[in-house]
């Protein structure tokens, strides 16, 4: 009991110094937590992928389209349950900075494969009936203040011209990792318009989304699909939805790695600050430690005091930092709008924050604790701060 009281009294002796150190911890661990969460958000798309969904694209690259008649051929491959065509639209809503993902899809098969997009039945039927109808995510609708029945004009980049859509349904997230910042509309509307505007570019599909009946046979089915189109004009590459999504993340991995490295730099900055605080504290109290030893306390008791104080300061700072990560993270996610569709502080992040706090506290206290434990009583009593 006395031990803890001593630690508390010691920590509060220099209120300003302890306060500043705690503040440093709060700032450092808050920013560390946010950076880790940004990295997690980067991978969220891949984690939201279902194992029974496959994506077929042109083997050359994603920007080279596939012919529409592949849809029937893929459907006939044994083990394939559903096939839907999808095109990345890349339209601009008012300004380029309002970016959100837009897809032209075969509505009925596509949404049957994505049960995590929760749509009210009557809204979905209204969408199916309206050729210019669109399904938008809850988060996207909130960002731009769209309601059912609102008109949304998009300016095409890949598909030239101005495009008019009407919001017919809003989908909600079925799972925590579901991205509700997307915009879907009828593939047929895209194709018919292109047929009128640029006939050569009609009947071209960006990707086919496929669901399989038996997850265990996904690899074999992918192989069978690609085999169908080998040595044709447009060879295909079929992979699981997850592999497809990770492919995107991997290409920007240099940035993710940089953010990860930088997030640990702030821990090192805090380590320097903490080590300085503990070194100064211990130096000032050398004569007290010598007195304790003179009274018969073992060296281990003295070092335990220093470690305890370091851990107490780090613990309080880290606890506040972790506590703030959640509200600040929410605020940050709101400010970023649709840039980070899924932004959630994970349990792993919190565990990492705690582990780093303990490591910083222990490393910072190590050197002063060793010196205090080793100091000879006579020298220590002579020492002045």
């Amino acid at each position, binding site marked *: 009991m006395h031990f803890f009281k001593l630690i508390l009294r010691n920590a509060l002796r220099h209120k300003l110094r302890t306060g500043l150190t705690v503040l440093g911890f709060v700032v450092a661990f808050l920013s560390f937590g946010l950076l880790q969460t940004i990295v997690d958000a980067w991978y969220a798309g891949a984690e939201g992928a279902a194992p029974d969904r496959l994506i077929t694209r042109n083997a050359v690259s994603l920007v080279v389209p596939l012919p529409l008649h592949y849809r029937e051929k893929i459907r006939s491959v044994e083990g394939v349950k559903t096939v839907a065509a999808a095109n990345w639209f890349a339209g601009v809503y008012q300004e380029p900075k309002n970016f959100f993902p837009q897809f032209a899809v075969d509505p009925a098969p596509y949404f049957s494969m994505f049960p995590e997009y929760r749509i009210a039945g009557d809204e979905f039927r209204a969408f199916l009936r309206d050729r210019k109808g669109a399904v938008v995510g809850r988060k996207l609708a909130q960002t731009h203040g769209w309601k059912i029945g609102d008109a949304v004009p998009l300016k095409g980049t890949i598909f030239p011209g101005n495009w008019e859509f009407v919001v017919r349904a809003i989908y909600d997230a079925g799972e925590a990792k579901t991205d509700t910042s997307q915009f879907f509309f009828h593939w047929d509307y895209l194709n018919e318009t292109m047929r009128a505007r640029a006939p050569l570019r009609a009947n071209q599909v960006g990707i086919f989304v496929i669901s399989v009946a038996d997850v265990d046979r996904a690899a074999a089915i992918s192989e069978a699909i690609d085999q169908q189109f080998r040595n044709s*004009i447009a060879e295909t590459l079929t992979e699981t939805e997850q592999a497809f999504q990770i492919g995107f993340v991997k290409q920007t991995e240099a940035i993710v790695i940089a953010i990860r490295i930088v997030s640990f730099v702030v821990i090192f*900055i805090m380590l320097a600050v903490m080590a300085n605080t503990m*070194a100064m504290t211990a130096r000032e109290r050398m004569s007290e430690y010598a007195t304790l030893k003179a009274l018969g306390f073992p060296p281990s008791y003295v070092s335990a005091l220093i470690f305890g104080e370091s851990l107490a300061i780090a613990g309080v700072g880290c606890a506040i930092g972790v506590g703030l990560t959640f509200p600040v993270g929410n605020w940050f996610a709101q400010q970023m709008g649709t840039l980070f569709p899924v932004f959630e502080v994970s349990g792993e992040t919190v565990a990492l924050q705690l582990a780093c706090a303990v490591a910083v506290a222990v490393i910072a206290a190590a050197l002063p604790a060793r010196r205090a434990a080793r100091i000879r009583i006579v020298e220590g009593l002579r020492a002045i701060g």
Partner: protein
Amino acid sequence: MVIPIRYTLRNLWTRKLTTALTAGGMALVVFVFAAVQMLDTGLRATLVATGQPDNILVTRRGAGSEISSGIDRVQASLIEAQPEIALGPAGERLVSKEAVILITLPKRDSGQATNVTTRGVGETAYTLRPQIKIVQGRAFRRGSAEIIVGGSIAERFDGASLGAVLRFGGREWRVVGIFDSAGSAFDSEVWGDADQIMQSFRRQAYSSVVARLTDASAFDAIKARLDADPRVTLDVKRERSFFEDQSQALSNFIRYLGLTLSIIFSIGAMIGAMITMYAAVATRVGEIGTLRALGFRRSAVLAAFLFEAVLIGAIGGVAGVALASFMQFLRISTLNWQSFAELAFSFTLTLEIALASFAFSVLMGIIGGFLPAVRAARLSIVDALRTL
């Protein structure tokens, strides 16, 4: 009367560990601050070097990037006929009608499938882009399935070394040369014959048209004429600003994220400086009283302590910039969101960045040391001397 600089220097030296830890914290902040700006500068330098000042690049209106653009043959010849376009030595028009597609290649170290820009170019491409030099092998022959690759591609992709064969568009393409483009984005591209590439992909339209102007100032005239022409819907841009715009999103992301982080991290480092300086003041109350009794003014005491904090900042600044300068040996490659293809660039240290980083560090010292210095200056002589 000014307190001698030696007093400050010796104070820092006596508390070596504390000085080093405080300056070390600042050095890390300066490192992040400098490294981020170096990355942004490197990215911009790469894309600015890609465009020639007197070239124009034409894409379909609203396309934004070459891969989403399409210009049919009629429109392309309309551009070619413009009077502002310069003529080559043999009287040919300096126009390159280009087809840009992306192909996927596996990276050498990770095997990761990566988008690579593949550019089919016209005959005048080498005149239009004088920075391109073939460093190994030879140029591709027109009308054949031969390609040349940029230095970054040859280095980082397995199947793209000299003599290798790449399969795309239902054909096999032989790499017959490697080119260097003086640090521009072309280093991350594959080049071939435009007609061959369009044929293999059954494409009817070019992606972009590049042309040399007789004079850089002729830009406004050609842009005004093409904008007003009802037969075409095109975006006419200077080649340099086109490629600069291609880096906008990535550059903004790097810069804003980097600046935000530097500022947040600097709070930590400033707190470190504050703790150190408060401790320095607290342990030297007697000395301060003596100095004041000797006739040094409050302002002199304030200056001495502030100077001490500035020196710690300066040490941190120098160490941070030195640390960051090693990043110049590193080359980074990532997906450029706008062109949707791989782009390699390096960290570039400029004098401005070095100076700005140093100033940032000194500023951290001033902010961290100000309150403690004020406390030192406000001590009353009698109280201070009593602690002796």
